[in-house]
């Protein structure tokens, strides 16, 4: 009996570790920017290229910054969720059109709906690099002081919005 106890326990430990490893998503890299000030930028707006969009305009508000692109399939998946969230009025979602063609981006928004009050244009992907974006869509929750509080990698789904984003926004707004 004792002879099998040790190999069996080692086996169970290995299985547990491998099981945990299987559940982890290697695409989700923890961002060092959570808890830090949102990097500043000043980008032309998508619909009014003469105007700029900058996170400084958002001081004192809790808001979401959503990196998206018309070429990104995950953004299409995420889009209805953003539309619902925008309609609910819980939190404003500002867009950043990441490495995209301006006309295609505008067509995309007019076809599927525009959840953003303002969309910035990041055609060279530099704002994306400053925010540590490595795969659109990515969404940042930014608080009243302009600090990043949460980063969503990949599409937002209704569950994440309900269980993570909205409670976090409410908590940040109460501060």
């Amino acid at each position, binding site marked *: 009996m004792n002879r099998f106890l040790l190999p069996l326990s080692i086996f169970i430990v290995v299985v547990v570790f491998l099981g945990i490893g299987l559940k982890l998503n290697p695409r989700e890299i923890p961002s*060092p920017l959570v808890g830090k000030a949102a990097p500043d930028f000043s980008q032309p707006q998508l619909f009014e290229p003469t105007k700029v969009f900058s996170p400084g305009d958002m001081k004192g508000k809790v808001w979401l910054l959503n990196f998206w692109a018309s070429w990104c399939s995950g953004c299409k998946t995420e889009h209805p969720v953003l539309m619902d969230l925008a309609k609910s009025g819980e939190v404003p979602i500002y867009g950043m059109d990441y490495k995209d063609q301006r006309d295609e981006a505008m067509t995309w928004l007019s076809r599927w709906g525009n959840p953003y009050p303002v969309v910035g244009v990041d055609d060279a992907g530099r704002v994306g690099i400053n925010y540590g974006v490595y795969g659109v869509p990515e969404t940042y929750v930014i608080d009243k002081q302009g600090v990043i509080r949460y980063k969503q990698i990949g599409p937002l789904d209704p569950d994440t919005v309900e269980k993570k984003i909205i409670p976090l926004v409410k908590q940040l707004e109460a501060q």
Partner: protein
Amino acid sequence: MNMKWITLIVMAFLSGPVWAGEARPLADDPAAEARLKHLAVELRCLVCQNQTLADSNAPLAEDLRREVREMIAKNMSDQEIIEFLTARYGDFVLYRPPLKATTTLLWVGPFVLVIIGATVLIITLRRRAGKVVEVPVTEDEHRRVEQLLAEGGKRP
């Protein structure tokens, strides 16, 4: 006639670089390019995670190479460039994770496992050595062995 052939051959060789579009020269300064190469093999592409920034053709890798190239042009040190990237993408961007509180297990783990393995091996070998007991053979048994050996050949 001869001249025509030479021109043709020369033109054939010259046409090579025209369609070799993939390996375009990246910067005019070979020293900067060497530094980029040296840095890029140490950095991980975030999109195709098992490729280095040097190997990857992902658009993000291209952008990051451009960013690194610009930083090299600004005369920033390797240290500063790596800090720029880790501030945005975390230690994950490094192929050699730094020794930190969170990475101690990663660095020390293999050595701990070797020590555990060696200890178990030594203990097992010692225990086994202790188990081998000398069995004295009596005079009677000796005779019986000799007898059996002598008979052994006769058996079918």
